[in-house]
């Protein structure tokens, strides 16, 4: 597989790691360099398709993937008739629509140039989402106080040059405030300390 290491490449990695049904690999065989104008053959004989608007193209790909996911995993739902619509009627209608929109965007992304492009910021993405996962994993096991400390520490890594002492102070204050507000004042049922 020849992959042009240019603009679309980060999105590509992103896309491949995303869940959902596998899309035909041949579709994103190659992303050509922006200077190439037409579809051409490379030495290995793979097709090189130029993507003129990566934004449209990848949006379309994500829509297509999600539509296929919803379509395929909803196949066992009864379709019903238009008079008595079954539980599968709306899912099929909507995933069909999404599929068509996604396909149109893919075509537009290949055919029509548009200025872009916003790249993804991986560092904050990983640490912000990661600290959310830590929160989910730790809360019922470690209690709110320690979880808060952990989450503050983990999310601080999404910025360069975090100062450990400052992070510790923020974490302790946040843990105290969160416990005070949510557990003592609002009386939410959240464990405060690890249950042993």
């Amino acid at each position: 597989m020849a992959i042009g290491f240019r603009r679309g490449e980060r999105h590509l990695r992103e896309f491949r790691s995303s869940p959902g049904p596998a899309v035909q690999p041949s579709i994103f065989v190659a992303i050509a360099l922006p200077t190439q104008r037409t579809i051409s053959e490379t030495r290995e004989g793979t097709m090189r398709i130029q993507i003129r608007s990566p934004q449209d193209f990848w949006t379309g790909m994500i829509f297509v993937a999600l539509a296929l996911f919803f379509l395929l995993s909803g196949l066992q739902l009864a379709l019903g008739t238009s008079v008595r619509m079954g539980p599968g009627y709306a899912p099929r209608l909507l995933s069909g629509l999404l599929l068509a929109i996604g396909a149109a965007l893919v075509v537009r992304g290949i055919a029509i140039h548009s200025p872009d492009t916003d790249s993804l910021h991986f560092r904050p993405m990983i640490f912000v989402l990661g600290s959310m996962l830590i929160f989910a994993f730790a809360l019922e096991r470690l209690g709110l106080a320690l979880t808060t400390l952990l989450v503050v520490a983990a999310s601080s890594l999404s910025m360069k040059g975090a100062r450990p002492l400052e992070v510790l102070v923020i974490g302790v204050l946040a843990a105290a405030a969160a416990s005070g507000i949510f557990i003592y004042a609002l009386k939410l049922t959240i464990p405060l300390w690890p249950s042993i």
Partner: protein
Amino acid sequence: MGIIDNLSLGFGVAFAPLNLGFAFIGVMVGTLIGVLPGLGPLTTMAMLLPVTYYLPPESSLIMLAGIYYGAQYGGSTTAILVNIPGESSSAVTCVDGYQMARQGRAGSALAVAALGSFFAGTVGTLLIALFAEPLSKIGLMFAPPDYFSLMVLGLIGAMVLAHGSLLKAFGMVCLGLLLGLVGTDLNSGAQRYAFGIPELGDGLDFVPIAMGIFGLSEIIANLGRQGDQRAVVSQKVRNLWPTREDFDRSWPAVLRGTGIGSVLGLLPGGGALLSSFAAYSVEKRISRTPEEFGKGAIEGVAGPEAANNAGAQTSFIPMLTLGIPSNVIMAMMIGAMMIQGITPGPQVMSERPALFWGMIVSMWLGNLMLVIINLPLIGMWIKLLNVPYRILFPVIIVICGIGVYSVQNSTFDVVLTAALGLLGYVLIRLGCEPAPLALGFVLGPLMEENLRRSMLFSRGDPAIFLTSPISAGLLALSAALLMTFLLPNFRKQREVVFRE
């Protein structure tokens, strides 16, 4: 009951000490998060939604409403002093407000923004009081096909008014509708997209969607944008009163902004953001000195600030009278009503007049409180602006987590929020607006139900949507909206408006 009786009932409810207290908390929190960039009213409401479970319905809705319109006031402070929109709807205010601050006219700009907002908020509240009753009477005549068409209109409105590509917005609506289908189908009892996970059996909750797609992705985007340093205009804000000249120039702009905002707030997909953009471009166009815009024209502050507040108020009208949210914030309000066991719709006004009128009067009171909070306490809000984001955002993430978890004590929802945050962030970076998705999600189940009933009623004949006059009218309106968008002329103008 006449309007006087209604309003006096409302005053009784709004002045009850508990409700007065929660209105105050709401507008304080609203101003606070409005001032702080990176934390919007939607995320805040989502965080507080689980808490409202413990409050009486009146207090809960009064507080949440206060957060929304309070944020409109707070956002303008940040826009004027720091040149960063504290709130997306105050983005336009940055342009001329910040220039005024640099010229030493910050006091004038802040005062005009607050007083203009107050005037617009008062007019908006009055409009709700006047039109809510007749509109909810119309709402009671709605049959399933009419509701379906109304929601079609809502979604098309959200698509047309979103930034960027119409096709992408359409895709986001479909995705939202699909996500809305997750869970047990009410008609057949079949499980849809639950994959044997018990937490999915009841469907997705709105809070993880809102928090993931708006909250988390906003935080990531802010962190990615680290380069911009904030430069607070450090001069002391003196003379918190507009000069004679500023006053004379701003009141007509406030009047126009109020009118524009009141109308645009009603539109599905409209609300505060669109209103402020529209008001700015109108002011610039009719001004005799358009060259002053961008260099500190007071009209460029007065018009949009009035418009965003009027829009924030009138966007309550479709939600309160028809039970249909016109934007994502209103979807959140509907979520809050459901937590209290109230089904939103035209019957709310007749069945729970105390709730309805209490909320309306409290909006006016809240606006009054906001003028008082914002002007004399401006120094406190400026101090707050100096809190660096690196201290704020870890705390925001913790609060997001607690908010999502406490909706139904489920860590699964927190994981779901992270997953939706990933999807939301990637899609936003690819140029897709999240608002149509959220609106689709809320309307999905309702649309399916009304479509089903209509088709059952008409024995599968889709012509029913055209034979019912209300439905036909709404569909015609949707078609017209779509057509105006597709006309090249309007399209160009829309791009201009969004670019400014």
